[in-house]
């Protein structure tokens, strides 16, 4: 298996590479945490691309049950067919719907399974998947069939910030916390996304961006994805460089701030800061 070294449009730090390679080689789930917008979900896509494997995505919602990842038995359809005298009704397997785990276990080619935002589900959810992820097999009670993975799939699990992931679950995972990128890494990320972008524009924008992040009391700090969006906007709007360069402290709000500040309280905060700066001068 090829080692994961980041891809042409994903910048992976050394520690991330080690964690990914360890998880891929030992076939243990990789649990990825980090601030929203630091590329947790994208990571799974890139791993799939790097090892040339199909990606199976399982997006978790608050209503998702562990069982749905294995299979679902559509009793209502069977009941209906029973009423209508359909022949299919005699074979129960016609009414078993495969879940994402089943799909991953029986995939002809070794897949990458992404369990996205596991913390959104009920607190019991990870516990319910312990055995399945550990042994990579499960039983279908309706048909008395055992579904087992030929080869353990690569599993990537993302979590936003759930304290309560159970210990037993964590013991089975490799863990990586994507820390907010430093300027060097951020520069590399920008280079990957906007090749040929004006250096001065980027460095100015990054300065402003990190300044914004450091404002105390922000409800939601802008993250990598917001910076990328903002740069895209600045480029699209053809924002003249001097708007960024000659920033007047009385105008504390950066241009096109909608991409950076996602919360009206934060915008208010900036307006207040601008007001204070004006009063001082």
């Amino acid at each position, binding site marked *: 298996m090829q080692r994961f070294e980041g891809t042409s449009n994903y910048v992976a730090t050394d520690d991330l590479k*080690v964690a990914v*390679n*360890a998880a891929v080689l030992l076939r243990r789930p990789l*649990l990825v945490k980090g601030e929203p917008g630091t590329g947790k979900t994208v990571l799974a896509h890139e791993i799939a691309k790097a090892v040339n494997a199909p990606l199976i995505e399982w997006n978790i919602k608050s209503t998702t049950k562990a069982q749905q990842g294995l299979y679902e038995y559509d*009793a209502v359809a069977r*009941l209906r067919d029973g009423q209508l005298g359909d022949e299919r009704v005699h074979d129960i397997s016609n009414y078993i719907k495969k879940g994402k785990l089943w799909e991953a276990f029986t995939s002809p080619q070794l897949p990458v399974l992404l369990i996205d935002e596991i913390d959104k589900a009920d607190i019991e959810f990870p516990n319910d998947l312990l055995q399945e992820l550990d042994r990579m097999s499960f039983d279908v009670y309706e048909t008395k069939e055992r579904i087992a993975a030929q080869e353990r799939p690569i599993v990537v699990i993302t979590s936003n910030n759930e304290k309560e992931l159970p*210990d037993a679950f964590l013991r089975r995972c*490799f863990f990586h916390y994507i820390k907010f990128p430093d300027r060097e890494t951020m520069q590399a990320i920008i280079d990957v996304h906007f090749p040929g972008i004006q250096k001065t524009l980027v460095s100015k924008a990054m300065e402003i961006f990190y300044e914004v992040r450091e404002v105390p009391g922000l409800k939601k700090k802008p993250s990598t994805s917001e910076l990328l969006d903002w740069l895209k906007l600045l480029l699209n709007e053809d924002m003249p460089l001097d708007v960024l360069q000659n920033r007047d402290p009385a105008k504390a709000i950066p241009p096109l701030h909608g991409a950076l500040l996602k919360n009206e309280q934060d915008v208010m905060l900036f307006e207040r800061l601008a007001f204070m700066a004006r009063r001082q001068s």
Partner: protein
Amino acid sequence: MFFNFIDELRSAGIQASFKEHLVLLEALDKDVIEQTPEQFYYLSRAIFVKDEGLLDKFDQVFNKVFKGILTDYGQNPVDIPEEWLKAVAEKFLTPEEMEAIKSLGSWEEIMETLKKRLEEQQKRHQGGNKWVGTGGTSPYGNAGYNPEGVRIGGESKHKRALKVWEKREFQNLDNTRELGTRNIKVALRRLRRFAREGNPDELDLEGTIEGTAKQGWLDIRMRAERKNAVKVLLFLDVGGSMDPFIKLVEELFSAATTEFKNLEFFYFHNCLYEGVWKDNKRRWSERTNTWDILHKYGHDYKVIFVGDAAMSPYEITHPGGSVEHFNEEAGSVWLQRVAHVYPATVWMNPVPEKQWGYSQSTKVIKEMVGGNMFPLTLDGLDGAMRELTRKKH
């Protein structure tokens, strides 16, 4: 291997178990990483740390454990490695491998070059020799010494590698985990009692199948959705000494309102008396009589007080003790009434637990609620919710 490391991790509060240890050995065995200290650090971190709050602790432990070995061997690198590396090599290398090494020259010659490299390296930067000392005690060190060349001499990565954990980049993640609403909600979720109440709007599959089988035609049965039916009364202290905790209480309040469908909340000041209010702007004009609350909400309600419990003891124990008005009956009488009507009563105190002992009133109130006073932290909230669930009513 690395038992010392595991012990240190555990004593630092990182729950490293045998399982993780085996994973680490397996990973080393399968050559998941290149043999650099940096990579070893990343690998062990991915294995042992499962919570970003512990990353900084891990960095410190890693530094401590591997630095300890470094000072032992690091002072005088010329003395130690020879016999010691030889012993290690004999222990781990197969005879064939030993032969392969010998073919490169005599053992002494190799050792001599190795020594030279180590010395050079020490002059160039301090990272190098440390790495040898570290590696020596591990299978990792054995891997470092192999026929392919005394990689121990290594390139210049070492110094940078050491810095990675010495930088302690995750310092600000440690111990700063605030009680975000998300975490509060998770803690509050402990307090659940599922019941089917309300409109039947969910298909009762089993009932339908059974009914259909009995009757011979499709007999759809519906039932009410399974919901958290726990009922909560929340009493919040406002004003005065509670001001520093506004944000914390705000978060608890917003989490509680989304988590509990049957939630009633009331405000009070310092201590509970005969009247409470629902709107702080109209606290004098629209008051609710505390008796009415006791009568209206059944015994099965769970009561959570949130307050700092810091006041003059007279405000609790004496009629007329309130700082705001003349109260006919002492606060303690009201607290006892509530605790009597609602067996499941807890008091959440935003003041750190260490400081409770300095306040007489805190002790008195703690006694009033049957000792069930908890600090307003995640652990405290967890404990409080367990206490509330434990009580039948």
